C-alpha cells in the first residue's frame, strides 16, 4: 500500500508548493487579461485584440525568429566546447567548462553598459574598425544584435547539459560501435549525438524558451518590437490599466509550454539510458598534434567571443572614465575599495539566497523528474509543465503577485508579513530558476536505466533507499549542472527582487548594482560589484566541476 501512496504524496506536496507560490500569485495578477475592462466580466476579447494588432503579430514573429536563430548560434558555440572537452584528454578541460558558464552571469545594467562599450555603434570594436578600415558594423542593432547577445549569453545551457549528457553515455555502446568498424564523424553522428540527445534537447529548449521570453537583452538594445518587451513596457508604465501587458504574459506562458511539449515529443518513445552498469562517459583519447592545435585555436576563439562582455566588464570596473574611446582613460582600484567597504552584506545575502534557492531547485527538480518519469501518478506531466511555465512569467508579475498574495499573511514568530520577509526573495528565486534545474534533472534521469533500480529493488532495497543510493548518484552530473545554472542565474536576478526588497540589509547584489547604476558616478562601483558576482559564481562552478571529475576518477579506480 505504501508504495502506491508515496508517489501521490510527493506529487501533491509538489503541486501544493507550485500552486501557492506560482499559480495563485501569478493568477492574482494576470486575471485582468481575461477581464472585460469596461464591465469586469470574463472575456476573451483582449486576446482578440492581441491577434488583431499588427504590432503584436510582428512582435510574435520577431520573438520566434530570435529564439530559433539563438538556438542555432548557441549550438554552434556550445557543441565544439562540449565535445572537445569531454571526448579528448585535454589540458584545462575543467577551466574551459567553468569559463563556459560565466556568460550566464550577466549582471543587470552594468552588463549592458559593458556590452555597449565593446560592441555598440561607438564601442571599442567599432572604433577600431573605423580607424583601420573606415567601417562600422552594427553588432548591437536590431534583431541580429539580440540574436548575437542571446547566443553568447545563453549557450552555456546547451554546454552544461550536453557535457553532462556526454559524460553519462555508456562507454560500452561506443566500444561496440567501434568494434563494428564505426569511427570519426559517423560514430559521432550515429552513436554519440543520439545518445546525448536528452542533454542537448534540455539545453536547446532552455535556450529557445529563454531567448523567446527574455526581457533584459532586447531592453538593453532598445528593441521594442518583441513580445517580452511589449509585455514589460506595458506592465511597468505608471498608473497602468492596459490589460495587454498581461495578455502578452499569458501568451508567453502558453507558447513556452507549447514549445516545451514539442521538444518532449521529440524525445518520446526513445531509450537513452545506459546499459546495466553505471554509465562512465566517452572514451577519452589523445589528439594528434595538428588536431590539438586546431581544437585549441577554435576553443580560444570561442572563449574570447563569449567572454568579451566580461573582459569589458573587467575594464569598466578598473577604469576611471570610459567614454567614446577604445579603452578607459586610466585605471584605478578605487571602485573595489568602495564596493567592499560599503556593500559587503549584498554579497553575503546573494550567496545565501542563491545558494538556498538553487538547492531547493535541485531537490524539487529531482522530485518532479522522478514523479514524471518513474511513477504513474495521474496528471504528473502537469507538474513539469507548470514548473517550466515559470520561465515565461515576467519577474515583475511574480513580484507583484507575491506582494498581493502574501502581504496580509503574517508569519508567526517573526510577526511581519511574508511579503516583506527576506525568505520571500528566496522563494521568488527558487520559482524563477526552477525550470533550469528541472530540465537538467529530467535529462539526467532520462539517461539512467530502469534496470539498475529494478535490480536494487529485487535485492530488497526500498524505494527511498533506491532513489537515494542508486538514482541520485547516477544523476549527479545533471544535478550539479542544474545547481550551477540555477545558482549562477539567481545571483543576478533583478526584476522580481527589486519588487520584493523591503530593507537594504536584506538586499542582494543585483539590487546593489541597480542602486549604483542610477548615478553617473556609480558606474565603476556597479561594474566592480558585477565582476565580484561573476568571480564568485565562476569559483562555485569550478568547484562543482572539480567535484564531478574527482568522483569520476574515484569511480574508475574502484571499478577498474
Amino acid at each position, binding site marked *: 500500500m505504501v508504495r502506491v501512496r508515496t508517489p501521490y504524496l510527493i506529487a501533491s506536496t509538489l503541486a501544493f508548493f507550485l500552486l501557492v507560490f506560482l499559480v495563485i500569485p501569478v493568477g492574482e495578477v494576470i486575471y485582468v487579461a481575461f477581464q472585460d475592462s469596461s464591465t*469586469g466580466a470574463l472575456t476573451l476579447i483582449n486576446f482578440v485584440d492581441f491577434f488583431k494588432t499588427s504590432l503584436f503579430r510582428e512582435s510574435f514573429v520577431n520573438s520566434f525568429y530570435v529564439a530559433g536563430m539563438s538556438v542555432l548560434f548557441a549550438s554552434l558555440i556550445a557543441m565544439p566546447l562540449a565535445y572537445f572537452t569531454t571526448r579528448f584528454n585535454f589540458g584545462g578541460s575543467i577551466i574551459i567548462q567553468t569559463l563556459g558558464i560565466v556568460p550566464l552571469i550577466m549582471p543587470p545594467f552594468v552588463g549592458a553598459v559593458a556590452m555597449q562599450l565593446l560592441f555598440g555603434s561607438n564601442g571599442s570594436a567599432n572604433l577600431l574598425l573605423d580607424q583601420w578600415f573606415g567601417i562600422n558594423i552594427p553588432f548591437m542593432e536590431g534583431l541580429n544584435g539580440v540574436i548575437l547577445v542571446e547566443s553568447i549569453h545563453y549557450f552555456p545551457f546547451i554546454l552544461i547539459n550536453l557535457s553532462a549528457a556526454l559524460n553519462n553515455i555508456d562507454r560500452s555502446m561506443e566500444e561496440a560501435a567501434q568494434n563494428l568498424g564505426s569511427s570519426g564523424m559517423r560514430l559521432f553522428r550515429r552513436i554519440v549525438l543520439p545518445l546525448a540527445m536528452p542533454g542537448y534537447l534540455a539545453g536547446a529548449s532552455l535556450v529557445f524558451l529563454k531567448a523567446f521570453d527574455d526581457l533584459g537583452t532586447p531592453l538593453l538594445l*532598445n528593441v521594442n518590437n518583441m513580445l517580452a518587451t511589449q509585455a514589460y513596457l506595458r506592465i511597468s508604465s505608471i498608473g497602468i490599466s492596459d490589460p495587454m501587458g498581461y495578455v502578452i504574459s499569458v501568451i508567453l506562458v502558453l507558447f513556452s509550454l507549447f514549445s516545451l511539449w514539442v521538444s518532449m515529443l521529440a524525445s518520446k518513445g526513445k531509450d537513452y539510458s545506459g546499459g546495466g552498469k553505471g554509465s562512465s562517459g566517452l572514451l577519452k583519447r589523445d589528439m594528434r598534434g595538428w588536431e590539438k592545435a586546431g581544437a585549441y585555436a577554435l576553443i580560444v576563439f570561442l572563449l574570447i567571443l563569449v567572454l568579451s562582455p566580461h573582459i569589458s566588464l573587467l575594464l569598466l570596473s578598473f577604469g576611471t572614465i570610459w567614454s567614446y574611446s577604445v579603452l578607459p582613460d586610466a585605471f584605478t582600484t578605487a571602485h573595489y575599495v568602495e564596493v567592499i567597504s560599503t556593500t559587503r552584506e549584498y554579497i553575503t545575502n546573494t550567496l545565501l539566497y542563491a545558494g538556498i534557492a538553487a*538547492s531547493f531547485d535541485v531537490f524539487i527538480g529531482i522530485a518532479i523528474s522522478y514523479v514524471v518519469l518513474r511513477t504513474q501518478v495521474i496528471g504528473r506531466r502537469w507538474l513539469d509543465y507548470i514548473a517550466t511555465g515559470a520561465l515565461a512569467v515576467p519577474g515583475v508579475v511574480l513580484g507583484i503577485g507575491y506582494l498581493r498574495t502574501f502581504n496580509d499573511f503574517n508569519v508567526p514568530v517573526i510577526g511581519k508579513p511574508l511579503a516583506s520577509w527576506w525568505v520571500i526573495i528566496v522563494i521568488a528565486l527558487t520559482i524563477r530558476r526552477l525550470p533550469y534545474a528541472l530540465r537538467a534533472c529530467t535529462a539526467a534521469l532520462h539517461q539512467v536505466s530502469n534496470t539498475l533500480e529494478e535490480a536494487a529493488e529485487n535485492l530488497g532495497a526500498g524505494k527511498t533507499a533506491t532513489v537515494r543510493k542508486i538514482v541520485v548518484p547516477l544523476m549527479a552530473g545533471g544535478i550539479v549542472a542544474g545547481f550551477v545554472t540555477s545558482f549562477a542565474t539567481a545571483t543576478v536576478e533583478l526584476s522580481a527582487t527589486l519588487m520584493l526588497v523591503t530593507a*537594504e540589509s536584506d538586499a542582494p547584489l543585483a539590487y546593489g548594482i541597480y542602486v549604483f547604476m*542610477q548615478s553617473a558616478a556609480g558606474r565603476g562601483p556597479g561594474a566592480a560589484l558585477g565582476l565580484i558576482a561573476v568571480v564568485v559564481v565562476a569559483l562555485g562552478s569550478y568547484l562543482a566541476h572539480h567535484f564531478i571529475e574527482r568522483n569520476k576518477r574515484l569511480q574508475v579506480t574502484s571499478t577498474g
Partner: protein
Amino acid sequence: MRQHKNTFYLFASISLSVGLLLSQALPAHALEDQLTVVTSYPKDLTTTFKKAFEKQYPGIKVEMLKKKTTAGVKYIQETASNNSSDLFWASAPDAFEVLKEDGLLQKYTVKATGIPEVIGSYPINDPDGYYKGFAGSGYGIMWNTRYLKAKKIPAPHEWSDLTKAVYHGHTGMSAPSRSGTTHLTVETILQGEGWDNGWKLMKEIAGNFHTVTERSFGVPDGVNSGQFGVGIVIDFFGLSSQASGFPVEFVYPSVTTLVPANIAIVNKAPHPEAAGAFIEFLLSDAGQRILLDPKIRRLPVRPEIYALAPKDFPNPFVDKSIGAKVKFDVLKSKSRYNLVNSMFDVMVTYRLDDLRKATKAVQDAEKAMVGKDNAEAAQLITEARALIAALPIDEAKSLDKEFAATFKKKRKKATDKVTGRQAEVEQQWDAMVKSNYAKAKALAEKASSLL
C-alpha cells in the same frame, strides 16, 4: 559507493553553510524610532540626506528603500493593506497623483515658512496638500564632447537644433510612459508650442533618434559611454555626469520647464512623526543646502540658499528664462496623461525605425534640393513632412474626457463603466502612423529622384 557519499557531502555542506549564514543574516529590526522611505533617488542623494538627518535626530534610523518610480508606486499600492512605508520620495509628480487618487497618501501641513508658491511657473506643492516639492529640476540637452568632436557635429542649444539633419542618428531620449520626468518634457513642448506644432517638433526631433531608452537614466548612460552623442535629460543627470568626470556638457534651451521633486507621507504610515520631521528637515536651511552638493545638484525651493551656490548655478527665482516661457497647465497635463504616453509610444517608440527612415529620406531630399528650383520636388517634400507630422487625433479630442478615459480605465467600483479599449484605439493609430511613414518615405524618395 564513495561517489554516493560525496554527492551527499556536497549537499550536506551546502545545507550546513546555508544554515550558518541563515542564522547570521536574520535581521534584527528595531521596532521604534525608525523611518522607512521608498525612493527612486540615487545613492548619492539618499545617503547624504540619511546621514545628515540621522545626525540631527540621533534616535531615528532611516531605511532608504530604493525602487524605480513605477516599482515604488506598485509596491505602495500592493502593500497598502499592511503598510510599512512612511514616505514616498521621488521626482515625477504623476506618480504622486496616482497614489493620491488611490487614497494612499496622507495630508501634511508644512511648518517651515519662507517657501514660495511657484518655482518657474510650476506650483511647488500639491494644491490638495498631499505632496510637497522640496527641489526643482529643469530639462535640457546634454552632449558628449568627444563624440561631437570626432563626428564633427556642432553643439546644440535649442530644441529646434535637434531637428537638423546633422543630428540624424545621434540623439536619444527616454519614453514618457516609462519616465514621469520625460513625460513632463513632452507635455511642456506640447503646451509651449501648441498641440500640432508641438507634436511636429517632437517627431522631427524623434526622427533623428538613435534610440528611445527604457529608463530615464539610460539617456545620460548612453551619452556618457558615447553610445550616442546627444541626450534630452533632466539637468542633474547632465551636471552630475560632468561632476563625475565624463566628457559631457549640458545646456538649458530657452523653452524649458522646471519640474519639482516631491515627497509625501504614505497613508497609515507607521512612523508619522519621524516622517514629518524628515519633510521639515528637507525644507529647512540645512536640508536645502545639501541640494547644492555637486553630486546631487538640485535647485533649492528656498530662494535665499542660492546666495551660497556656485557662480554658474541657475537661479529660477531670478533668471526668468528658466521655466517661465511656458505657463504650465497642470490640469491639462493630468487629464490626458496616459493618452499622451500612448501616442508617443505608438508614433515614436514602437515605430522608431519607420519614423527614422522617413525622416532620413526627407532630409536627403532637402539636401539635394539646396540651390535647386524644382516646384514638384518641393511640393513632394512638403507633403512628406505633413504625412510624418500628421496626428491621429486633434487637441480637442485629447481633452475629451470620455475619450481620455479609454486610457485610464480605472474601475474604482464594480459598477463603474468605461467605454472603448486602449488596444483597439492603438491599433487604429498604429495602422495610420505606419502607412503615413511609409508614404512619406516614398514621396521623399520620389522628390530625390527628380533632383
